[in-house]
């Protein structure tokens, strides 16, 4: 598990617990200053990653561990969040975790499944699978930064005494 992260969560690998991590990630990302749309995309990526651990890493077992840590990031004045997701699967070849192309050549060729890794790739600014060095298992590191605010449409504004995070 990533050391010294300000927030860390461990769940048993029961799919019922996924919603709890999603909520925690959404609220942390929002509190760290990411706009709603970015929070939504990050939450989806984390959910897909945890689902893949349960399905592919643990073969559906619900009594193994998934660890998730959350930390605030800053890059060129942009606020962001790092999510590190660790499991305790046997060492697998990280090269085998590959997104299938999301656009089928032909609508009749779409098949159920094969979306998770592609969604993860498309939903965050940075992602990296690596073997854990602290224990046996896989680590996925995700980073998401706040999108630039939409251009001001000249709507009404108010005198604000304060607007603190």
């Amino acid at each position, binding site marked *: 598990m990533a050391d010294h992260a300000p927030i860390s969560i461990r769940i048993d690998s029961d799919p019922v617990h996924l919603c709890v991590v999603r909520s925690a990630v959404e609220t942390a990302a929002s509190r760290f200053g990411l706009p709603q749309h970015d929070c939504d995309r990050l939450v*989806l990526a984390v959910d897909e990653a945890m*689902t893949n651990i349960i*399905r592919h890493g643990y073969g559906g077992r619900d009594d193994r561990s998934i660890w998730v840590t959350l930390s605030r990031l800053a890059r060129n004045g942009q606020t962001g969040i790092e999510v590190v997701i660790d499991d305790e699967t046997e060492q697998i070849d990280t090269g085998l975790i590959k997104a299938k192309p999301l656009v089928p050549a032909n609508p009749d060729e779409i098949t159920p499944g094969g979306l998770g890794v592609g*969604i993860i790739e498309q939903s965050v600014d940075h992602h990296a699978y690596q073997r854990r060095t602290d224990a046996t298992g896989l680590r996925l590191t995700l980073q998401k930064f706040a999108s630039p605010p939409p251009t001001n449409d000249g709507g009404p504004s108010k005198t604000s005494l304060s607007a603190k995070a």
Partner: protein
Amino acid sequence: MANSPMTITSSPLDDGQMVQVTGDIDYSRSSELRVELMGLLGRPVARLIIDLVGVNYMDSSGVAVLVEALQIQRKRNQKLVLCNLQPKVKGIFEIARLNTVFTLTDSVELAKGA
């Protein structure tokens, strides 16, 4: 962020069935959704409308179930129409480039004519 129970209710249409789903659909619930839809599609349904107005969140395990239902309907030359996709659900269909593969409508009325 209350996580309300998933419900799946079905009602007949002149030319098929309408299914209303509520609740977040993730890997803890997608197999239940699959069982219900595959049960309904055990016999031909000329038009299957799935109303997602009560679904605020769906991940790829939910999308996979809908893709499977679409495949069945296509092979039979029958219709599957999804309606009332909420923003996050619309989002995953867009990310997965499936928004052009499915027939999506903004109301049940439109779904009946689609």
